[in-house]
C-alpha cells in the first residue's frame, strides 16, 4: 500500500501544497483539478524530483521519502518525451532494465500485449504519439516497480486510442498488483476506468 502521509511542499514564493491519502496495490487513482493546483507536484514528490518539507512517503510500511529517484519503487510516464530519440523502441525499453536480463520473447510479449508488436526496431520519430506512449508503458511494465505515475500520459491521444491504453493499464494494475496514480483533465478517463478520484483545489 502507498502511504502519502501528511505531505507538505512549498514553492519558492510561498505557495503551499498538502497531500494526505493511501492507495492499495492493484488500485488506480485519478487526480483531477484546475491548473496550478499541484497535480504534477504530487507526482514529482512521490517520484523524488521535488523534496517535501514535512510528512512521509512509504510503500508497504517502508519509508522511501529520503531515497533518490532511481532507488524509489516508482516509474513515471510523462506527458511526452518519454523516449530517447536516438534509440530504437526496443533499446528504449531495455536501457531502463538495469542489468536485469529479459528474454527477447518476454520483451516482444510486452510489446504485443500493448498492441504495438512489430515496432521494436523503429526509432521514436518513426511512430505515432500514441505508440510512443505505449512503448513507455511497456518499459514501465517490465521495470516492474509497484508504483506507476502517469502525468497526463494519454491526454494527447484520441479517445479510442486512449481507451486502448486504459484497458492495458487496468490489466497491468490488476495482474502486477501496481498502485497507479494518473493525472488527467478529462472526466471521461476516471468514468471509463471506474476508479477513485482525488479532486484537488486551492
Amino acid at each position: 500500500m502507498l502511504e502519502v502521509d501528511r505531505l507538505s511542499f512549498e514553492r519558492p514564493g510561498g505557495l503551499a501544497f498538502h497531500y494526505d491519502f493511501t492507495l492499495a496495490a492493484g488500485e488506480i487513482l485519478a487526480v483531477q483539478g484546475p491548473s496550478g493546483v499541484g497535480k504534477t507536484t504530487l507526482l514529482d514528490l512521490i517520484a523524488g524530483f521535488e523534496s517535501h518539507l514535512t510528512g512521509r512517503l512509504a510503500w508497504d510500511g517502508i519509508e522511501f521519502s529520503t531515497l533518490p529517484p532511481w532507488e524509489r519503487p516508482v516509474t513515471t510516464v510523462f506527458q511526452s518525451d518519454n523516449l530517447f530519440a536516438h534509440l530504437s523502441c526496443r533499446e528504449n525499453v531495455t536501457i531502463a532494465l538495469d542489468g536485469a536480463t529479459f528474454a527477447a520473447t518476454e520483451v516482444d510479449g510486452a510489446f504485443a500485449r500493448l498492441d504495438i508488436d512489430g515496432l521494436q526496431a523503429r526509432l521514436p520519430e518513426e511512430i505515432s504519439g500514441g505508440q510512443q506512449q505505449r512503448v513507455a508503458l511497456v518499459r514501465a511494465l517490465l521495470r516492474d516497480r509497484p508504483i506507476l505515475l502517469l502525468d497526463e500520459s494519454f491526454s494527447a491521444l484520441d479517445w479510442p486510442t486512449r481507451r486502448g491504453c486504459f484497458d492495458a493499464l487496468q490489466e497491468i494494475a490488476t495482474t502486477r498488483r501496481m498502485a497507479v496514480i494518473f493525472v488527467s483533465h478529462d472526466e471521461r478517463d476516471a468514468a471509463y476506468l471506474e476508479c477513485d478520484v482525488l479532486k484537488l483545489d486551492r
Partner: protein
Amino acid sequence: MAARAQPIALWRRPGPISPVGLGIAIGLLALALAAIGALVSVAGHGPAGGGGNILRVAAFTAMQASLSTLLALALALPVARACWRRAATWRAGWLLPFSFLPVVMPTTVAATGLIGVWGQRGFVSDYLALLGLDRLPPIYGLGAVLLAHVFFNAPLMLRVLNGALTSVPASQWRLSAQWGLSEWERFRQIEWPALRPVIPGLLALVFLLCFTSFSLILMLGGGPAVTTLEVNIYTALRFDFDLALAGKLALLQLVICGAVVVLLTRLTGRSWAAATPRPTHGVPHQKGDTSTFCRTVDALALALFIIITMLPVIAILVRGLGPYLIVVSEWPALYRATVTSLVIALSSGSLATMIALVLASARTRRSDAGLAVWPLDLSISLYLAVSAIVLGTGLFILLRQVADVFLLAPLLVTVGNMLIALPFAYRVLEGRLAALATAHDRLCAGLGLRGWRRLRRVTLPAIAPELGFAAGLSSALSLGDMTIVALFGSQQFQTLPWLLYQTMARYRAGEAAALSLWLLTLTFLLFMGFTLAARMLGRRRHA
C-alpha cells in the same frame, strides 16, 4: 513570504565531472594569467615612447575592422532575405551549406584565391585584357583586406541572419500577406524584430575577428601602411626582437579585445555562436515579393555574394589543377609539412573537443544544481579575448627563460591552436548539452540512468553530430592556422600554411596555387571526415 534558498535536490547533485571541469577551468585561467603576466613584466622595461605610433596602428586596426564588419553586414543582410524568400523558387537555399566553406578555409588559401580572381594576373584582369582593356591595378592594400574580410565574414553573418528569419512563425508571414503589407513595412514590422536581437552580437563577433586579423593583413596588406596590432606584435617579436614593444602592443590588443568580449557577452548572453540554421520551410508568397523591383534586388544581392565568395574558390580549383601540382609533389618539404600539419591538427582538434566536452558537461551539471558556473564561462571567454598572437607572445616570453622555444615549437603550436579553437568547440557542445539536460534529466533520474552509463548510452550518441562538428571545426581551424606558427616556425619546423605563405612571398604563384588546392582539399577532407564519422557513429543501425 520570502523565497527560501532551496537545497540542491539529491538527484541533481553533480558527479565527479564537476570538480574535473573546475580543475581544467582553473588550469586554463592560470595559463592565461601567466601569459598575460609575462607580457606585463616585459612591457614595463625598454625605452618609453613610440606611443603615437602605437595609437595610430590601433586606430587603423579599429577602422579597418569597423569597415569590414559594416561591409559584411551590408552584403549579408540582403542576401539573407533573398536566400530566405527565394529558397523554394530559385533554390537559393543551397547557398547556406556552401557558406560554411569560408569559415573553415585557411586564410592563406583564401588569399591565393582572392589574388587569383582580383589580382593583376587574375581571372578578371585576363578577361579585361582579352577585351582589349587595361588590367586591374595591383590588389594589395586596404581594399584587398576589406574584400578578404567580407569573403570570410559575410557567409558567417548569412547563416546567423537566415537562422533568425527562419524563426519567424509562418502565421506572421501569412498575416502580413493577408494585410498586404508593403516590402518596407514587412521588413520593419516582421523581419527587423527577428533580426534586431542577433545583429549587435554578430557585429561585435565579426569586429573581433577582423580586429585580430593577422595572416590576411600580412599577405594582402601590401606594406607598412596597412597593418594591425597583431602584425606589429609579430614584427616586433620576430624581426626587431623588441620584447618591450611586443608586450605593450599585446596588452593594448588584449584590453581592446577584452572590452569587445565583455560587450559581446552583454549583448548576446551565452549564445554568440548559436548559429545553427533550422530547415527552411516554405514561406507563403508575399504581396510585392514577385514585383520586378524586388526580384532584381534579390538577384543582384545573390549575384554579388556568389562573385565575392565563390569565385575565389573556383579560382583555387582552376589554378591549382595544373602542371605545378607535379612540381610541388616533388618537394620533400611538402610531405614533411603535410605530416606535421595533420599531426598538429588532429591532436589539437581532438584535445579541444575533449576539453570542451568536459567543461560543457561540468557547466551543465553545475548549472542544473544551481552551483556557480562563472569560472567555467570566464576560462572560455578569456581565450576568446586573448588572440592567437597575444597568447603566442605571452607563451614565448614565459618559456624563453626556461627552454628553447623553437625546440618546443610543435608542442606550442598544438597547444596554442587547441586554446584558440576551444571557445568555438565549447559553444557548439554547451548549447546542445544544456538542451539535452532539459530533455533527459528527469527521465534518466527516474530510470536510474546515471554517470558513465548515461554518458555512454544516452548522452554521447545524442551529441555525436555536435562532437563531430566541433572536432572537424577545431581541426580545420588548426590545420589552416598561420598565426601561431608564424611566431614559432623555422626551417626545421614547417606547417602547410607556413610553406604556402613562404612560397607566395617568393612570388611563385603557380606553386602557391597548387599548394592552396592541396591544403584546401585536406581541410575539407578533415572537416567532412569528422562530421560524417560522427554521424555514422551516432546513427542507429536499423533492424
